[in-house]
C-alpha cells in the first residue's frame, strides 16, 4: 500500500529493520557502555519509525500515542542509565563493559 508517492509501507519496514539490525550489531560490536546505550536508542527509534508508518497506513492515532510513550520510557531509561554509568565509572574508572564480569557463580 502506498503511503505517499511511490513509497509503500514496505519501504519503511525495511528501513526500520535495517536500523534495528544496525543497533543490535552495534551493541554486540562495541564494548563501551555509552555507545551501547546509544545503540539501544537507535533500536527504539527503528521501532518508532515502523509504528508511525503503521499509524499512517491505518489512519489511526493510537500508534502515535504509543511512540510518545516509548519516548517517555526512553528518556527515563537514559536518565537512570547514565546515572548508573557515572557510578560505574567512579568505581572502575572505565566504561568498558568487559570489566563487568563479576556477576557469575
Amino acid at each position, binding site marked *: 500500500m502506498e503511503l505517499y508517492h511511490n513509497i509503500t509501507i514496505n519501504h519503511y519496514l525495511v528501513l526500520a529493520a535495517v536500523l534495528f539490525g544496525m543497533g543490535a550489531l552495534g*551493541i*554486540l560490536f562495541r*564494548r563501551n557502555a555509552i555507545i551501547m546505550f546509544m545503540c539501544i536508542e537507535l533500536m527504539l527509534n527503528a521501532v518508532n519509525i515502523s509504528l508511525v508508518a503503521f499509524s499512517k497506513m491505518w489512519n489511526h492515532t493510537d500508534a502515535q500515542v504509543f511512540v510518545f510513550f516509548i519516548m517517555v520510557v526512553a528518556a527515563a531509561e537514559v536518565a537512570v542509565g547514565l546515572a548508573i554509568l557515572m557510578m560505574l565509572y567512579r568505581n572502575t574508572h572505565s566504561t568498558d563493559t568487559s570489566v563487568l*564480569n563479576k*556477576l*557469575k*557463580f
Partner: protein
Amino acid sequence: MEKLVTLIPLFPLAGFLFITFLGKGLSKNFIGGIGSGAIFLSFVVSILVFTTQMHGAHPTVVKAFDWITAGTFDIDISFLVDPLSAIYLLFITGVGFLIHLYSIGYMHDDEGFNRFIAYLNLFVFFMLILILGDSYLTMFVGWEGVGLCSFMLIGFWYKDMKNNDAAKKAFIVNRIGDLGLILGMCLLFAYTGTLRYDELFISERAIGGLPTEVATAIGILLFIGAMGKSAQIPLHTWLPDAMAGPTPVSALIHAATMVTAGIYMVARSSNLYAMTESAGDLIMWAGILTSLLGATIALTQNDIKKVLAYSTVSQLGLMFVALGMGAYSTAVFHVITHAFFKALLFLGSGSVIHGMGGEQDIRRMGGLKKHMRTTHLTFLIGTIAIAGIFPFAGFFSKDQIIAVAFEENKLMFLLSLVVSACTAFYMFRLYFLTFHGKFRGTHEQEHHLHESPAVMTLPLVVLAVLSVVGGFIGLPHAVGESMHMHWHWLDHYLDGTVVMPALHMDLNTELMLMGLATIIAVGGIYLAWLKYSKRGELALEDKDITSATHKLMLNKYWFDELYNAIIRKPVDAISKALGSFIEPKIVDGLVEGTGAATDAAGGKLRLLQSGSLFFYILAFVVGLIALLLYI
C-alpha cells in the same frame, strides 16, 4: 421491614470484631455488655422481622451482596425470611442473649473471658447465616462456621489435652457428616441446576422432575449431614464429649441451637422428603435408635453434664422420629421447647457446678436445694418440662410426637413411650441426687457453696418461665378445637413453609394419648423418687457395678471402643505401614531425587553464567533470530 434482616447477623459479627480487635484492656463487664448487647439488638430486629410473618406466610428474599459471579453462573448471599427462619431467628437470638448474659457471670474469673464472648458472638453470627441463607450453599457456609465455633469453644480450655481431644473428635465426626451434605448438595445441583430453596421448592419447583431414587439418595445424603451435626447414630459420639467446653457453650451450641441445625435442614427440605418414603423411614429408625440409646445411657451416667448431653441426644432422636414420619412442624415445635428447657437445665447445671467449685459428679452432690434456691426451683421446672408433665412446654411437644407416632407407626409409638419413661426417670434421678438428700461433697466444697449471682439466675428465671408457657404455641389439634381456641398456632404458622402431615384424630383418642403419656412420665418420676429419694439410694461407684447391662450403658455401649477398633486401629496400622515403607523409600526417594536432579542440573547450568555481557547479548540476539525464524 424485611430489609432489616441483613442487620440481624451483622450485630454479632460487629460484636465479634470489636471484642477481638479493640477489646484488649477493657473491663470484663463492658465486654460482656457489648457481646450480649449485640445479640439483644439482633433479638429486637428479629422480633420486627417476625411480625412480618405473623399473619400468614410472606416469604421474602433479601439480597445482601454478590458472592461469586462467573459468566452466567452467579451466587449471591441472600437471606430468606419466611415463617420457619423467622421463628428460628427468634429463639436463637432470644436464648442466645440469655446465655450471653449468663456467661458474663459464669466466665467472670476466666482469663479467656474476651475470647469466650467473641467466639460466642461469632457462633451466633454463623448460626444466623445458617438459618437465614436462601440456598443450601449459603446454609453450608453457616453450617461450617458453627462447626468451627463449636470446635473452638469445646477446646476453649486448651491447656487441658482432654478438651482438645474432644474438640478434635467433634470436628472430625462432623466432617463425615459434612461430606454427606456436600455430596447431597452436588447431586441436587446436578439434577436441578439450582440450590435455592425458592427455586427448588416454590417458584419453579425444580425438585418436581427428580426421579424417586435420586430424591431418596439426596435425602439420605442430606440426612447424613444432619446426623453429624445433630448427633444421630452412628455419628453421635462427639456430642457427650463436647461437654468438655464451658457450660454456656453446652447450653447454647450443644443443646439449644447448633445441634438442631440438622432438624432445621431436614424441615427446610420437607418438600424433598415428601417425595420419598424410604429416606423418611431411615430418618425415623435412626432417630428412634438414637433416642433409645441416649435415654438408656443417660440412666447410668454420673456426670451432671453427661446426663444432660445424652438426654439431648435422646431428644434430638425424638425430633428425627417426628421428621421421619413427616411431622415437620412437630419436630420444629419440639426444637423450640427443647431449646428452652434444655438451655435452662444446662445453665442450671452450670450454676450448680459454679457453686460446687467445678465439681460435676452427682455422687459428690446432694442437698443443694437449701443452698441454691433459685437454681433449684428453675432446675425443677426444667426437669418437669422435659419429663413431660402438663402444662409444661415439653408435655405438648412430646405429646404431639407420640400422637403422630400413634397414627403412623405403632412400634414407634411404643418405643417413644419407653423413651419418655426413661427420660422422666433419669431426669428425676439427676434432680434428686443433686438437690435432695445429704451433701456428699468435701467439707471445703460445702463451705464454699453459694447461690450464683443475679446475672446468672436471671436467665434461669426467664428460661423457666418460657419452659412453662412455651408449649402453648402448639396445643393439640383436637383439644384446641374442642376448646374453641385456635392455639395450635405453630402448625398454622408453618403451613405452606414445610409440608404438613394430615392428622385426623378425634378428641377422645387425643385425650387418651395425653393421659397415657402423663401416666408413663409420672411412673418414671415415681420410680426415681422411690429409689433415690425415699430409699435414699445413691448412684454406685464405678467399681461396684456388677450387672452387665448397667456396665454396657455406663460405657455408652462401647461405641467409642468399637470405632477405635474398626476404624482408628486399621487406619493407624495402615499409616504405620505406609510410614515405614512407602514414605522413606518411594516418597522420600522421589522428593530427594528431584532435589538431587535439580542440584546436578544447576551445577552444569551455572557454567553458562559467565558474567560476560557480550555473551549474554549474543545469546539474546541468537534467541531472537531463532524466534523470528520459527515464526
